Each structure stands twice: as C-alpha cells, then as structure tokens.
C-alpha cells in the first residue's frame, strides 16, 4: 500500500473539558476528492485547524506525504503544500482582489527585501510574474474583472470564490475547503460543483471538503467521512453514507431523499 497523501493518525483536540475531535483516524490518497460532514459543532473545522497548524492536536499526529506536520507552524504547512479556505470568510479586507491572491503567491517568490526597496529590475520582473500568476487564478475563478476592486466590494458568492483563488495561488497539493457552498443559492452551488471538479483536474489537486449542502457533497465526493461529537462515526462512498443508519440518526435525518 502506498503512503496516503494525508493521514490523520488518531488525532484528538481537547479544549479544556471538551474533546472537539476525538481519536479521529483518516487517510486521504493523492487525487481523491473527499468530504467531511457532520452536525454543527461536530468538530469539522477543528480538524481543518489541526491539519493547517492553527492548533496542534493534543494527541495523535498529522502526517502529510509521510512526514509529520502537526506541531509545525501554520505558514510552514501552507508553504509545504496545504492551503485552505475559511468557513467565516477571511479576506484581506483593505486589499484589492488581485492583492489578496498575490499574498498567497508570495512564498513562491524569493525577491529579497533589499531588491524590493531598491526596485531592481530583477525585483520588477519577479513582481510582474507574481501579479500575472495571481491574475491567472482570479481568471480561473471568473473574477478577472474585479482584479482592482477591494475584496469587500464583491458579492458574497464571489468572496467565497476569491477565497478559493487565494488558496490556489499557494500552489497546494492538498486543498481544504470549509463550507464553500454556505450561503450560495442553488444555481451558485451548481456552478461551484463544476468549478471544484474543474480545478481539481486542472491543478491535479487532492481536495478535502467540509459541506452541509448534501447535494454538493454527494454530487462530487468520492468518499465521505462523518463526524459526530468529535468522533468519526462512518466512512464510505456517498451511497454507503446515505444508507448508514448511524449517519441518518446523527445527521441526515429520516427524510433524506434516496
């Protein structure tokens, strides 16, 4: 068996008396598009925070490409190939859309501080390349027209897409999307599904997706894990998950259409 791209090795995240994540064991392989679902407060976002270095799991470890990343600083993990979007949109509010994305491309450009301050030709060339790359990402997400607009001037759905553009500019191998369809209307969610499968193919990404919109999750994920009270209660294909009695009881409810 090959080493998984990402392996959550029995991770637990304890906040005081609360175990937000409890001994979650989960492996994701290169190229997969997998979902993470569960009721509110189940610990999904906390799992993302443990993967991206916002928190260090109190027990267990996170392995990425065979190396331990839990305990590393968040920016090192990002540069190492894992970027994310946020459930509560966290854009750089006073920067333009292009600059929002350019920030994420920053680790891949090594023009030094001195050359930036002296504005050497080498720096100018590097800056141009960086902006071009950021613009390309905006274009992929259909936001090229808004490059010079402040990020906060975008409509809600566009802000969600800008977050994805920004995460992509970091050239990740693993992309984490935290509820990308939240607050979108049905048509926008539909477009989002096409978009996610599109970028996955184009950038050869592995994607882990948190989502409450079952149409989106069941529609695009190949595998799904279910959390409830921090515990992984099920794992399987969309068909298996939909018919799993534990999942129905904890999360999906009775009237989930077949």
């Amino acid at each position: 068996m090959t080493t998984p791209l990402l392996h959550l090795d029995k991770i637990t995240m304890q906040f005081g008396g609360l175990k937000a994540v409890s001994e979650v064991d989960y492996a994701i392989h290169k190229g997969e598009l997998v979902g993470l679902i569960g009721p509110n407060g189940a610990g999904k976002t906390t799992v993302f925070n443990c993967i991206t270095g916002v928190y260090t799991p109190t027990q267990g470890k996170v392995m990425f490409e065979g190396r331990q990343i839990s305990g590393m600083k968040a920016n090192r993990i990002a540069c190492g190939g894992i970027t994310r979007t946020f459930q509560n949109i966290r854009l750089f509010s006073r920067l333009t859309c292009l600059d929002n994305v350019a920030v994420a491309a920053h680790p891949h450009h090594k023009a030094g501080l001195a050359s930036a301050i002296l504005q050497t030709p080498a720096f100018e060339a590097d800056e141009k390349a960086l902006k071009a790359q950021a613009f390309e990402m905006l274009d992929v997400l259909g936001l090229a027209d808004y490059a010079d607009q402040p990020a906060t001037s975008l409509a809600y759905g566009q802000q969600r897409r800008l977050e994805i553009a920004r995460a992509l500019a970091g050239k990740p191998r693993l992309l984490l999307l935290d509820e990308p369809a939240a607050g979108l209307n049905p048509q926008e969610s539909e477009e989002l599904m096409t978009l996610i499968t599109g970028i996955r193919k184009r950038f050869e990404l592995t994607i882990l997706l948190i989502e409450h919109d079952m149409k989106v999750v069941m529609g695009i994920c190949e595998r799904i894990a279910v959390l409830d009270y921090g515990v992984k209660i099920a794992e399987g294909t969309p068909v298996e998950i939909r018919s799993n009695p534990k999942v129905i009881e904890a999360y999906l409810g009775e009237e989930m259409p077949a």
Partner: protein
Amino acid sequence: MKRFLPPILTIFALVALNVLLPRVMNPYYFQVLMLIGINVVLAVSLNLVNGFTGQFSIGHAGFMAVGAYASAMFTLKIGAPFAASLTGVPLPVAQGIALLMALVAGGLLAAGAGWLVGLPSLRLRGDYLAIVTLGFGEIIRVVILNVNAIGGARGLPGIPPYATFFWVFGVVAIVIGLARNLAHSTHGRALFAIRDDEIAAEALGVDTTKYKVLAFVLGAFFAGVAGGLFAHFLSYLNPSSFTFIKSIEVIAMVVLGGMGSISGSVMAAIVLTLLPEVLRSVKDFRMVIYALMLIVLMITRPQGLMGTRELDLGALFGRKKAKVVS
C-alpha cells in the same frame, strides 16, 4: 536609466535648498521646518508598524531616545575628532560623514533594541506589544535620567550641529521612498495581509512573526535615525523630550493621517507640528485647542485624512486617477 533620475534630482534639490534656505528663511521658521522633517521621519517609520502591519506600538519615543543619545555620544567621542582629523576635505563633507556614521550607529542601536523588544512580544498575537513598548519607553527614559555619563537629568549639551537641511530632508526622502517601495512589493503586501487578518495570512504561508519583527525593527531604526537628527540639530538633549507624550504625538500623526497611508503621515506630521506653533498666540489654551481639534478631526474623519489611500501627484496633473495602493 530612468529609475536613477528621481534620486539624482532629489539630491540636487536638497543641495540647492541646503545652501539657500538658511540664508533667506527666518530662523524660527527654519527651525519649525526642520522639526517637521524629523517628525515626518518619526511618523512614517511608526506607520510601518502601526499602519502597515496593524501592530500597536506606543514606545516610539523610546527608540528615538536610544538613537538620539547613541548618535550624540558617538559624535562626541568618535565622530567630531574624526571629522577634525579629515584635513583637506571640505568641512560640510567631513561633518556630513561624521553625521552619517552617527546616524547609522544610533539607528542600529535602536534597531537592536527593537529586535530585543519585538521578538518576544510579536510572537504572540494581541496587545502584548502595546504593553511591552509602553514599558520600554519608560525604562529608557528612566535609565537616561540616571546615567550621569550622558548628562542624566541635566541633559546632554554641546552636540555638534551637523544636521543640516540636506541631511534631515535627505532622510525624509529615504524613509518615504523606502516605505513607498515596500508598500508596492510582495513584502508590503505580506504586512498588509497581517494587518487585515493575521490568521488568514499565516494560513497562506506568510511568516507572520518574521514580518512583524521586520516592520518593527525597520520602524525602530528610523526612529533612532530621527533621534540622531534631532540631537545634531538642537545640539542639546534632555530626557524630557522623550516622554510617553512624544510617543502619543507620533501615534496621533499616524492615526490622523490614516493608518497605512504614507502621504497621510506626512501631511499629519506637518499639521501637528505646525498647529502648536500657530496656537502659541493663545498661550494657555494652546494644548486645549490642540486636543479639541484632534478630537473633532477624528470624529469627522475616523479613517484619518487619507484613509489607506495615497496622494497621487500624477493625478493632480491629470495623468491618471488616484488609486488604492493597499
């Protein structure tokens, strides 16, 4: 080589004004002009920390004091004898070299202090920096008060007045150019990202600790240089020039000008240096009116004079529209 043109023109203008202004200008106005220059350096350098990076430092006067005393002692012990030993070199050049060495020494010592203060407190998120810089400013002042070798409470007189118009406004040009170029680079964007959302910046690969410390150390360096200019302009230093009130004054310039706006800081430094002078005629009410005007300005324009925008000289001449830089 188009990019060398502005610096060369600036140097020519500075040399010409350096000769002209002290001869034609009323000495009082000239002194105010020089203090404006020094305050611009202080405001723009603090803007790197408070405006660009969104960290709250309230000890800028402390770094200014370190630079002022260090550069003054450097000149008294090393620079002045060295300048005197440079026979055959024109006097302004010899003194200029001595001043430059003193400014670099003062700036470096202030930057070193900034590094020591910044590294532990900037690792953490939140308001630690405010508390630590507040303490730092007070500690520096009390230390100066009690060290007799640098004059203690009596002050330090007899510093050679090497800081001419050329040097003060040369540093003004350098600090503005540096801040501007930084703002338009990937490093500046990293600072702005930290200001707007530190967690997101970190999740996108920005080494937030490194950049916060960098901005802070750069800010401390130029505060030190401003202190050095101050020392070599007034020829006399006193610890009472570097109280908490001075730090607040510089913060007021940054906030009034607009956090993150370089041209805003420059304008606010000019306004807030002139205001107390203009108000001298109303004597006792001077500081009351000064405070009232600050309050009114902040109520009517809470984002500061410029917000995060820049004054675009090109726009004044109809070349292109003013644009948002940050």
